[in-house]
């Protein structure tokens, strides 16, 4: 059944995630041995003075810094600011990416006008645009959010557009035979058919959003995780710097997990998921 084979194509991304880790057993323990050993070595190195605290804080010191920042509320305040920046910037970027991909993918005439421009802009190293964004938007919230928006727009644009263009022409033909209007074809065939790649794009977009926030928050920030890090640098507080970096990592992982959960719900019809949900 070729039709079903075609449907599995978007799930290639799922395959790329690698084999599923068994839910039971001690398989996971194997995976924590070496990181744990590294942390122990690091702690020993710090305690013995091999690793000076001015270069890299000891793991125990990082945990302590994390705890005291949490207790003082400073951590929470900066975290909220950073999350809000990503949420706003990524919302703008993803919305723009979706609108542009739909405009280009669904109307041939836009293909010639919009796509070349976007392909051109896409090649710009967006992190390098920071000075320009400061000139355009000043040094407040706007350039940070603009940078996040710019970074998160392209992955969504590219993957959604690719998905729209890759919708199985046989399904479009069937839609014609069974009397779907243009709008119904978009709603029932084209959009669901391009959802899987678009969600992969969303994951990339959010990854890019966090990355650009790290850069954006180093511009004259007075709040946010980036500010926490820059401020700590002035006081040689490597423990606080590490707390900031870990926070970025955790937030990145958390947003990725949210999209993956969304993916599992929205793509329940995919062959593997559908077979499990039987």
């Amino acid at each position, binding site marked *: 059944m070729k039709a079903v084979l075609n449907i599995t194509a978007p799930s290639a991304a799922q395959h790329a995630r690698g084999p599923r880790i068994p839910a039971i057993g001690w398989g996971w323990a194997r995976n924590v041995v070496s990181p744990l050993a590294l942390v122990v070595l690091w702690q020993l190195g710090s305690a013995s003075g091999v690793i000076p605290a001015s270069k890299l804080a000891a793991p125990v010191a990082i945990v302590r810094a994390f705890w005291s920042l949490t207790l003082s509320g400073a951590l929470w305040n900066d975290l909220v600011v950073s999350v809000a920046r990503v949420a706003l910037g990524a919302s703008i970027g993803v919305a723009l990416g979706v609108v542009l991909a739909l405009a280009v993918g669904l109307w041939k005439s836009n293909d010639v006008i919009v796509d070349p421009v976007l392909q051109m802009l896409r090649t710009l190293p967006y992190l390098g645009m920071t000075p320009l964004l400061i000139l355009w938007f000043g040094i407040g919230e706007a350039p940070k959010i603009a940078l996040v928006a710019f970074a998160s727009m392209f992955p969504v644009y590219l993957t959604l557009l690719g998905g729209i263009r890759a919708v199985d022409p046989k399904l479009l033909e069937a*839609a014609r*035979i069974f009397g779907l209007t243009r709008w119904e074809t978009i709603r029932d065939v084209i959009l669901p058919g391009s959802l899987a790649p678009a969600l992969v794009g969303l994951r990339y977009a959010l990854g890019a959003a966090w990355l650009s926030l790290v850069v954006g928050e180093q511009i004259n920030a007075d709040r946010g995780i980036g500010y926490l890090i820059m401020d700590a640098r002035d006081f040689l507080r490597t423990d606080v710097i590490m707390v900031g970096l870990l926070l970025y990592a955790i937030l990145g992982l958390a947003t990725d997990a949210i999209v993956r959960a969304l993916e599992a719900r929205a793509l329940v019809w995919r062959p593997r998921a559908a077979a499990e949900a039987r």
Partner: protein
Amino acid sequence: MSGALTDVRADRLTVAFGDNVVLRNLELHIAPGEFVALLGRSGSGKTTLLRVLAGLQTHSSGELHVPAARSVVFQEARLLPWKRVIDNVAIGLREPDARERAAAALREVGLEHRRDAWPATLSGGEAQRAGLARAIVREPHFLLLDEPFASIDALTRLRMYDLVIGLWRRHGPSVLLVTHDVDEALILADRIVILDAGRIAANLRVGLPRPRDAAIPGFAHVRRTILTLLGVSPADSPFTDGTDARAPHAISSGVSP
């Protein structure tokens, strides 16, 4: 059903892609309620003819009259994988009772128990049943079947034949079945049209009594005639030993003449 509205008629139908003429001056008439099988080897133009009759492709010249109420069962079921079976059957229906009608169609093809299943979980035979339900729920005057049983196992295929005949009897559409399986054409059709190089090479009325299977008297004889018309003479076939005119199809379905 008035004849003028539900007849299928092609006059001097020509379809060309650039210099490549796929169908030339083709004449075809299917009477209301008639079951016609279109046989031909790969490249004979049978798929093109089906696509033109289905309205998926335009013809280059000639006259074509096809009922507006027509429906297609594709070789691959072409179900929307993100819609449950019942929603696939009901797709494009505007009536307020669309879901009830889709459920009734699923009952008719024996797939009621899978109405809420995702298409990816259906077997090949189940997917084609859903495809049949989706076609029949529209009450077509003209039903086009594009090698719908090609990728189904032999046993399931036999059950599908009974199903198709039952649907045809009850709903009475004209049917055009495109196939390369001679046995299938003989079991199902009133008439067999053989297409070769874009022209109709032969037009045979199948006078065998129904219900048919490969064991009924006369079946082997008619099949031999058709295979000869298709250019597969018994002597050409590597499967024959000279005393037996079995075609590869007959061998694969385990029936001897």
